């Protein structure tokens, strides 16, 4: 350990920024900060990169795809639309790495392949992280945060926690201690010919049910509300198609039971477990089973941050965050990775962002790194756009840009129309920041939007005179938003911003 300590970067001390965690979120943020030349320290309790993907999903295959032949070369921006698993590299040989490590038996990488892809990203980019350094406690002292770790104290005015949301949650049900949690499953063979009751009807519950189908005698899935399927919601809300087999089994009377009921008690009785439930129609049903598994969600392991004043909400105890993923109650504390689910965004049409998944939060981390860079005095260059190119630039982003594709109604391409600076590409920003901050006056933000019914479509928000006007553009069966109709509609929407003087400034 002493030898390891000698070679590890970032010894305890004072840094402008400390990043905690080495899952995909921590890796992406540390990478993006390094790329922008922002001084920081990155620490992790783990001994290698990958975070929860070093052990989970329990059935060892990802729920997110990387298409091997999407028609775009790995490393291109378009490829990122079809690659949900690679981190977002800035250099060509850091991009699209998952495609290089998959054996192509499935376009859903195995868990070991996911781990390998993240390790490859970290090694190829020369990412510096102090592994084996456990964050243990936090305090606020003299205007800076002090992180007590297994290696000593770190001090910083800005701390980014990328610690995941992967601590299985035990439901507050009498007798819940008799239930195994996600991650506590025994070897699959041990469920042979047994009756298994699964509490929870989200993806984790259905992942377990799918894995148990060849082994268990009976599988019961129960929770108060009915199951939604992603193929119906046209979003990541609901159970993903890969885990729908138990639903079909139930629909075809194959033996699986899917029940909308509250679980009232779990009680051991004569070598088996009795599970008392009550349906929403107020009917009591009791099950005698051999195993109970609780797949009732996960907690963000924030340790003592709530005592420091960090407000949390919801079942997962997610920290409430600003549009730039800063704690809403303790400025200076930021979050990266799947914990970004706590920055809700607009949730238009009830469809949440993809901030809970790699393909969403990798872009959040890149936006956050840019934000932190500017707050720490690093100048980020912004390009100006000729007036004649504004419409084609925005429609090109809608048709090919991965950030808007994966973070619909959440991240947006922002263009400012400024009399002095001309027409300026402000880059990718949180849509809520554009709408609510007042930072942009005379500006447009373009993103993609899903409404859960039709195909996705571009939408532009024009901010002028303190008011915002939204203009949705048509959807397109080929997802081509560069048609004459799109050009004409977008040009009309932007007309108030493209005054003659601005047009000249941008030329």
């Amino acid at each position, binding site marked *: 350990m002493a030898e390891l300590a000698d070679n590890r970067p970032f010894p305890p001390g004072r840094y402008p920024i400390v990043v905690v965690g080495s899952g995909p979120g921590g890796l992406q943020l540390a990478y993006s900060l390094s790329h922008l030349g922002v001084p920081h320290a990155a620490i992790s309790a783990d001994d290698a990169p990958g975070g929860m993907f070093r052990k989970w999903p329990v059935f060892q295959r990802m729920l997110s795809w990387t298409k091997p032949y999407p028609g775009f070369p790995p490393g291109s921006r378009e490829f990122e639309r079809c690659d949900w698993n690679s981190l977002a590299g800035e250099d060509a040989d850091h991009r699209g790495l998952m495609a290089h490590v998959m054996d192509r038996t499935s376009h859903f990488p195995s868990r070991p392949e996911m781990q390998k892809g993240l390790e490859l990203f970290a090694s190829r980019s020369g990412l510096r992280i102090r592994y084996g350094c456990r964050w243990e406690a936090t305090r606020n002292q003299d205007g800076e945060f002090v992180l007590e770790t297994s290696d000593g104290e770190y001090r910083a005015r800005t701390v980014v926690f990328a610690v995941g949301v992967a601590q299985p949650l035990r*439901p*507050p*049900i009498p007798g819940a201690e008799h239930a195994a949690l996600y991650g506590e499953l025994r070897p699959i063979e041990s469920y042979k010919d047994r009756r298994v009751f699964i509490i929870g009807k989200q993806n984790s519950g259905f992942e377990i049910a799918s894995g148990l189908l060849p082994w268990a005698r009976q599988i019961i899935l129960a*929770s*108060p*509300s009915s199951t939604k399927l992603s193929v119906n*919601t046209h979003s990541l809300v609901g159970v993903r198609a890969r885990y729908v087999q138990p639903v079909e089994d139930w629909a075809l009377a194959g033996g699986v039971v899917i029940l*909308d*009921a*509250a679980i009232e008690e779990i009680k051991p009785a004569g070598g088996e477990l009795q599970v008392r439930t*009550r*349906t*929403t129609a*107020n009917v009591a049903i009791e099950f005698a089973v051999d195993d109970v598994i609780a797949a009732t969600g996960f907690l963000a392991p924030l340790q003592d941050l709530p005592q420091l004043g960090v*407000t949390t*909400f*919801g*079942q997962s105890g997610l920290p*409430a965050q*600003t549009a730039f993923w800063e704690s*809403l*109650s303790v400025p200076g504390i930021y979050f990266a990775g799947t914990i970004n689910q706590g920055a*809700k965004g*607009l*949730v*238009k*049409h*009830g*469809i949440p962002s993809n901030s809970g998944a790699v393909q969403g939060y990798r872009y959040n981390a890149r936006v956050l790194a840019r934000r932190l860079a500017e707050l720490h005095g690093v100048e980020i260059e912004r390009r100006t756009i000729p007036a004649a190119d504004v419409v084609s630039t925005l429609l090109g982003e809608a048709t090919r840009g991965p950030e808007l594709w994966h973070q619909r*109604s959440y991240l947006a391409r922002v263009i400012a129309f400024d009399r002095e600076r001309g027409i300026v590409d402000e880059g990718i920003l949180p849509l809520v920041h554009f*709408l*609510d901050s007042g930072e942009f006056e005379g500006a447009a933000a373009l993103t993609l*939007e899903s*409404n*859960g*019914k039709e195909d996705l479509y571009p939408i532009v928000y024009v901010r002028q005179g*303190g*008011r*915002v*006007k*939204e203009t*949705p553009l048509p959807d397109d069966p080929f997802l081509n938003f560069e048609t004459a109709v799109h050009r004409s509609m977008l040009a009309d929407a932007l007309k108030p911003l493209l005054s003659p003087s601005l047009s000249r400034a941008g030329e």
Partner: protein
Amino acid sequence: MAINELADAIAGFALFADLTTPQRQQVADVLTEQWFADGEKVLRQGLSGSGLYIILDGTAAIRIDGQDRANLRAGDFFGEISVLLGEPPTADIVAIGPLRCLVLPPAQVETFLKSNPGVMFRLLQGEARKVRVTTEWLS
């Protein structure tokens, strides 16, 4: 908040007064909890696609063209008119101090109300009160 705690928290709200405990648990499972800081916008005037909100605790202002018109408190709901008519809200709703809400996505409102007639009736009562207040203002 866990589902059971949420189910208890909404037990005192008029909107859910007619529900049994398992029904309240189902409601708590279907609705999503959201937290807003002082000054944050919950609904935005003119922006489509918003949902039905019920205040768990805290206060929110109804703001039209920058002017505060009235306040909403725990148990109050908003956003239902936009959802029912499929039109963008005509006011901003802004948190006054910390605000905790439950949210129902717009696409689920119809199914939710039809499967919970008790909630539908209470919501209608709420709308009737709003119409009465508006009529009093106009008269």
